[in-house]
């Protein structure tokens, strides 16, 4: 056994290494989140957390499930493809519990010009007006019904 003569210090040193490695494994077990590496080099559970963010826009399908009569007015008009919340704003709160919040009717004097103010920068085919020339002192909604904005001559649409 002359090979192992005077080698005790080497074994003690190796033992220290093994111990340090075990400590590393234990610490690592507690420090690294459980889902880390589930899909890649990141915390897999983060995906679920990001998906849990509350929505503020309900989506037009949700609106239409109650306000079907508006959909009937809209569907043949020029605004058929404009979603409800594009003008009415985020209304998830109202959709969750209609009694908790009553949506404010948008002011057509502010709302319409946001899209329809004439500008050389806008696509040529998009309907535009110069508000100063077009505006007669009446709110847009007097002549144009926003849900189906053809001229409302008879006042019945």
């Amino acid at each position, binding site marked *: 056994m002359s090979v192992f003569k005077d080698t005790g210090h080497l074994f003690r040193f190796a033992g220290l290494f093994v111990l340090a490695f075990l400590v590393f494994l234990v610490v690592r077990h507690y420090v690294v989140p459980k889902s880390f590496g*589930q899909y890649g080099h990141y*915390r897999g559970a983060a995906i679920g957390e*990001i998906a849990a963010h509350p929505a503020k826009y309900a989506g037009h399908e949700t609106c239409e499930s109650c306000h079907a009569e508006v959909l009937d007015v809209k569907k043949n008009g020029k605004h058929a493809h404009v979603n409800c919340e594009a003008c009415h704003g985020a209304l998830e709160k109202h959709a969750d519990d209609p009694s908790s919040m009553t949506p404010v009717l948008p002011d057509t004097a502010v709302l319409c010009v946001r899209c329809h103010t004439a500008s050389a920068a806008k696509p040529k085919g998009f309907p535009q007006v110069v508000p100063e020339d077009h505006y007669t002192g009446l709110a847009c909604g007097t002549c144009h019904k926003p849900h189906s904005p053809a001229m409302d001559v008879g006042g019945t649409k």
Partner: protein
Amino acid sequence: MKITRRQMLILLPAAAVAWESVLAGTPEDSPNYKMTEHWWGMLIDIPKCIGCGNCVRACQTENDVPDGYFRTWVERYHRSDWSMSNPEVVTANPLIDPEVISPDGGKEGFPVATDKSGKYFFVPKLCNHCADSPCTQVCPVGATFISPDGVVLVDQTYCLGCAYCVQACPYGCRYIHPEKKVADKCTLCYHRITKGLTTACCEACPTGARQLADLKDPKDPIHEFLKTHSVQILKPQMATGAKVFYNDLDGSVR
């Protein structure tokens, strides 16, 4: 119950595989949503954009984006007649032609353009959700990543706020959140698309200039659109695998 050596040899690896998923937990909040069945992107139809800023406002509302920071924004380009009739000439000063403006990210729309010469167009910008994104590669702690359904996300509980990713994004789509002090960016409304809704910007767009696209869904109209239109991505030379597709994009867009 007696287990033979043969049964044991079969059961042990099976248990090991099952234990992996026990440890992993269940990240998918929406029960019917399977990440492996989607590959998200977006289509921007430039000729339809009127620069109203609805998307910017909707994004801010939906995602609590602080004032002065943007997950999406709209730029207005103006190319002069001269630059269009002399396309071979490199403009001496790219700050002059094309003229690009984006007042407050286009949130409140754009000033009326009176100069009728040249060519105007609006370019809505957002995270391109690159398939080979430079921003996720530089993160030193694994706080930003591409989800299995192709959305570039930030784990804000893990992010250190070192801003490497902010520098790495060639499209300028990331910022350090002024209060949280961590990286923030477009999530492609991940909380909405996993529930079957479209993104807030697409929901609020009055002209359909922005459309959410699921590239793994064979029924998605994006496939026909890509075949029948002249569609480009931003900075293709960087090979980022960007998944925001721009229809009729002018060559001057940077």
